[in-house]
């Protein structure tokens, strides 16, 4: 048993787990990082890294067999040949949909850090105040100022490119130079700025794709291949593998154990603290106990909560953290797939070079400053532009050489954007354990009971109309709005279910992400979010994790944990 003792256990190896491992090992702790899936070695395991479409048997398209094997994944864009094996098996790890819920998971070392959208934005001052001001859910136990130095710290290390725009709604950070906007985007930005009295801004996307190398970390700047999801052999975007894992490994303090499904946190009711975790080996089904002084749950929002629900059930029927009545509740995501597209006249002497793995961003402007709507909160837009290719409709063109020549040249410029809207924390949006359905390892699965509410539907109208209005104001042609429908989870920004708060009666975690009922257990992934903001959340998980890890080590040194 002695060999199974560590200073800290980190459950999960994705974006937040990688940060926890890095911070804790660098501060001298012996850390065991547990990952339920298989290992993926940086670069050497990116077997498709240099492949092109023609190198895949079906040109990277999903087969009918793949659709059958991945009934959930096929609902979204990620089912393809280049990332085959990277997404969790819907069959091995099922869940129950009381209401339709799209849960896209990756059970591998690195988790979804290898498969994320890489857009990296800070929450703003108001994001941390909105719940309190509006009487929604509970107040965040922290303010922007508490997190700002940790945003600085994580941005510098992760490598975020972006422009400094001086906007309160989207605080600036420690950025590398931004990726270029297209000539069309630059002009549309100017026209939007002018048409809306300087209240709306089109800026380069802030992304964890680096524009400057970090030779000290063996990372190269982005090569503009736009093959991020194949795994980047240049280490140009932030992933566990490219960034936090090598740093943690370098300390000599990290042990990484793949194929380790954490079944529960072990809890000592007399000392009111966790003593370790129970692991099921995913390959052998062997059960193993690991002990530690502190535990970081970074298993992804819902799986961290799943672990809590399965822990200390002899004391609390609903599991560790359920004494608040909020464990599993307040599920959030970003609702999207609504926006507009347009064609752009002119710019025929301009094109693009390179494949930019990012786009432009329009920060929130609704319910901001003096703007007031009939709903709460707001949304931001992500978009891109470019000249159309062979896929464009040339129905009038005759078959043969004419058609071939025509579509071998670029067509007109197009621009499009989709809005990402904030979903309010609502107690009735919840996940819970379904004991009737079991996964491959005989463990109970989650049931999803989540839906959009009135606030979201009202917001979606603006999300479409504002996009149309901006493109029309910019003088674009064929402006057409779209609402391609959305099911919760589709944003792959699942948040909440173990929220931070100021009162153990109404929240699962305190202001340092400690479980109120077991102070040596920290949850620093998306589960901890008290509200969702409308910006992509991963950067905030990084900052929260680094902050909590710093606090945890201080508390250990003070012998408080």
């Amino acid at each position, binding site marked *: 048993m002695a060999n199974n003792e560590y200073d800290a256990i980190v459950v999960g190896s994705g974006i937040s787990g990688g940060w926890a491992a890095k911070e804790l090992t660098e501060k001298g702790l012996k850390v065991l990082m547990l990952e339920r899936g298989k290992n993926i070695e940086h670069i050497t395991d990116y077997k498709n890294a240099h492949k092109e479409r023609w190198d895949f048997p*079906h040109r990277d398209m999903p087969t009918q067999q793949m659709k059958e094997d991945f009934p959930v994944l096929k609902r979204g864009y990620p089912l393809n040949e280049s990332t085959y094996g990277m997404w969790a098996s819907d069959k091995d790890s099922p869940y129950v949909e009381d209401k339709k819920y799209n849960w896209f998971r990756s059970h591998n070392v690195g988790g979804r850090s290898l498969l994320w959208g890489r857009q990296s934005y800070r929450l703003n001052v108001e994001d941390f105040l909105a719940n309190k001001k509006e009487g929604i859910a509970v107040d965040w136990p922290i303010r922007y100022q508490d997190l700002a130095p940790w945003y600085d710290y994580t941005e510098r290390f992760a490598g975020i490119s972006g422009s400094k725009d001086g906007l309160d709604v989207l605080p600036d950070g420690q950025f590398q130079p931004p990726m270029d906007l297209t*000539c069309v985007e630059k002009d549309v930005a100017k026209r939007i700025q002018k048409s809306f009295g300087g209240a709306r801004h089109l800026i380069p996307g802030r992304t964890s794709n680096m524009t400057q190398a970090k030779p000290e970390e063996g990372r190269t700047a982005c090569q*503009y291949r736009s093959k991020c999801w194949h795994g980047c052999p240049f280490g140009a975007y932030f992933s566990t593998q490219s960034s936090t894992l090598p740093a943690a490994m370098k300390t000599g303090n990290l042990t990484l154990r793949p194929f380790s499904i954490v079944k529960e946190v072990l809890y000592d009711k007399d000392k009111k603290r966790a003593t370790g975790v129970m692991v099921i080996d995913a390959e052998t089904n062997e059960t193993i106990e690991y002990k530690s002084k502190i535990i970081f749950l970074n298993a992804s929002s819902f799986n961290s909560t799943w672990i809590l629900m399965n822990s200390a059930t002899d004391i609390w029927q609903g599991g560790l953290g359920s004494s608040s009545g909020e464990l599993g509740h307040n599920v959030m995501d970003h609702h999207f797939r609504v926006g507009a597209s347009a064609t752009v006249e002119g710019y025929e002497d301009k094109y*693009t070079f390179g494949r930019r793995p990012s786009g432009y961003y329009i920060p929130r402007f609704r319910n901001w400053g003096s703007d007031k709507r009939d709903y709460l909160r707001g949304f931001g837009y992500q978009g891109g532009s470019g000249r159309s290719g*062979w896929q464009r409709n040339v129905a009038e063109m005759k078959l043969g050489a004419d058609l071939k020549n025509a579509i071998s040249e670029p067509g007109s410029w197009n621009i499009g954007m989709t809005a990402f809207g904030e979903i309010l924390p609502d107690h009735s949006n919840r996940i819970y354990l379904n004991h009737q359905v079991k996964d491959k390892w005989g463990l109970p699965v989650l049931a999803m009971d989540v839906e959009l509410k009135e606030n979201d539907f009202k917001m979606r109208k603006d999300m479409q109309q504002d996009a149309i209005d901006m493109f029309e104001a910019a003088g674009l042609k064929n402006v057409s709005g779209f609402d391609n429908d959305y099911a919760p989870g589709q944003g792959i920004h699942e948040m909440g279910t173990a929220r931070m708060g100021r009162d153990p009666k109404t929240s699962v975690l305190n202001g340092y992400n400690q479980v109120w009922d077991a102070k040596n257990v920290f949850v620093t992934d998306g589960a901890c979010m008290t509200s969702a903001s409308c910006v992509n959340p991963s950067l905030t998980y990084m900052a929260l994790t680094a902050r909590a890890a710093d606090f945890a080590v201080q508390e250990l040194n003070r012998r408080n944990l």
Partner: protein
Amino acid sequence: MERRDLLKMIAAATSTGFVCRFASAYDIRPPVELKDTGFSNADVALLNEVGETIIPRTNTPGAKDANVGAAMAVIVADCYTDTQKSIFKAGMKALNGRSQTEYKTEFTAMSSENKLALLTELDAEAKQHINEQKGKGEDKQPHYFTLFKQLVLFTFFTSEKGANEVLRHVSIPGKYDGEYPYKKGDRAWYR
């Protein structure tokens, strides 16, 4: 000594972190043989002729150079729904039926001019079909020539020859320029 203890010792000795076990990720999808597609060499030849009529060799390679027929067979066999598959296969029969009726020969044996004339006819019929199907909800079924044409374009422009010799492709651009100069006649980037 337990295996894990051994690993721990190695880790301590090298004073670096370690990973307990290794396995594969980014699973390589196996190539598909023609015999597993249900299509024959003759079918592939027919699809290549259809492809070449739509995207002929000019001063750059055409559909046959890119062997679109083989790629089409694999995609139809594995990626199409059963309905799409039967429309596609019936379409291949129908095409030869038309060439027999109208030109008294198999499609592959026709002259390039006649092939183009026949496919142009079918292209018009397919467009007509799309108009007729407008408003039909779930019952909407594509015309076989629409499937042919879409798949020829897709397999051609995602082929190595199509990307590199007809379009332009730089596998590692190394930089990004959002207002790169363009003059009429410059080829589109493959992407």
